[in-house]
């Protein structure tokens, strides 16, 4: 069973989002998503300063057999990316919610996160998909 922290919000496309104290939002992919992708070998990160619409593809996560887009869970501007993933993409496999974070957004709407799923609803989504 994959790990599913209750303090995060989730998208239907398997991203997680965390509201930080400073109002920014950290984004990564869920434990379920990394498990489905398998060993991650490369992450293509966006440039800082890029403005993203909600659901816009903004990064690519590659395993040996698959390449998966990361979709912005909410609209906003990229203010940081996890540059460490360039050398250690496996951090997403080992620590999807912590060291494996992918990017940080300054959301256009401070309440945008409310539109995303809670952990229970996301758990149901995974159950339905399988």
């Amino acid at each position: 069973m994959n790990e599913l922290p209750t303090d995060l919000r989730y998208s239907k496309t398997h991203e997680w989002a965390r509201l930080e104290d400073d109002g920014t939002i950290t984004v990564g992919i869920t434990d379920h998503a990394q498990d489905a992708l398998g060993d991650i070998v490369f992450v293509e990160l966006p440039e800082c300063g890029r403005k993203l619409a909600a659901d816009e593809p903004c990064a690519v996560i590659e395993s040996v057999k698959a390449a998966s887009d990361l979709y912005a869970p909410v609209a906003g501007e990229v203010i940081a990316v996890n540059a460490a993933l360039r050398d250690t993409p496996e951090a997403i496999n080992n620590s999807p919610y912590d060291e494996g974070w992918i990017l940080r957004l300054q959301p256009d709407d401070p309440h945008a996160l409310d539109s995303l799923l809670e952990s229970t609803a996301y758990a149901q989504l995974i159950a339905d998909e399988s």
Partner: protein
Amino acid sequence: MPFIPHTPEEIIEMLATIGVSSIEELFDEIPAELRLKGLAGVPEALSELEVTQLMQARARADQPLINFIGAGAYEHHIPAVVWQLASRGEFYSAYTPYQAEASQGTLQVLYEFQSMMVALTGLDAANASLYDGASALAEAVLMAVRANRQTRSDQILIPRALHPAYRRVVRTLTEPQGIELIEIPYDRKTGQTQVEALAATGIEECAAVVINQPNFFGVLEEVDALTDWAHAHQALVIAVVNPLSLALLKPPGEWGNRGADIACGEAQPLGMPLSSGGPYAGFMCCKLGHVRQLPGRIAGRTIDRAGRSGFTLTLQAREQHIRRGKATSNICTNQGLMVTAATIYLALLGAEGLARVAAACCANTSLLAERLSAIPGVGPCFTGPCFHERVLHLPVAVPVVLETLAAEGILGGFDLNPDYPELGAAILVCATELRTPEEIERYAQCLQAILASQS
């Protein structure tokens, strides 16, 4: 039945196992009105003997001429070993090495080929080949637009002194993606593409500049200055090079202050017969930072479970079978068998052998140009330094001269006038290491006689 091993008894047994009474029944899901009643437009079968006689007769009709054309396809000596080895069934009849453990031969050849192209071009990484030099350039243009993060420009500067067929192929393959090709004129005196001509476009930045060394006229470009101009304008540099010339010429990775970003070209001179234009193999190399934008297959070295070295296809997430509509290219194959030949050719010749071939071509072409230029009305069009091709002007229209030469068994050169009317009556000639002094003399005498009869 040709190439079908079934005996009548086996067919009956197999149908019984399936539970049908005839082969015809196996097509029962195809709507009956669509079924074909025979292939009327196809001739009756021939035996191997008959087809051999047919093909030999056709080959006799195509007796080769003494070849003084290069223009993108070069006739070189191919050591006997090359196609003896490349024709081995284990290379010839293998598929793409998707099951790496059962394809270590092919995969190691690809890795060795990539290593040789890296050595020749001075860049960091190579793919396992593309269809040919022209389509490789088109792919390089698409790659440069993807890879250039400093500019959002879709403009590419492309020299007029690049092979006309390459320019056409680039147009076919890049126009649908909205890429704009801006043609850079050459200097009428030297035959070179000059920095001033790049600057005259007034462009402040563009996605890439294509630099052709030697260029289509055989003239050597001032690659350092062109490369530095491109980099100063946020453009990537795409080098289009003849791999044979790299035995002697500065590798693209060392051009200018930063080196070219991508190098591509036609690998045909490395052990591939002329074959009326194909199959050949395009190659492509790049700096490591761009490797994820490189199209086509790439072999990589890795380890097996016992820690032994082995080879596999890698970076496959770039490719169409995984990335589908977002892939770097739609290409699936490489020109595997041709690459096998090229790898064996380069292994046999080594750096010394390749340099000797290159030098012999240069020397023969120089001799040819001098000898032909001694004929009244014939002379070089350009003053720039040359590799193994030359542009010569003629005193009369080219087609009739070439036709008369062909009747004498001589393929006298490539008529430049249709593509470069500004040059008037001009031909592009090449004498590779295969051409003997006697053949060169014979060409000169024939040409002299033709011109004398024309005047």
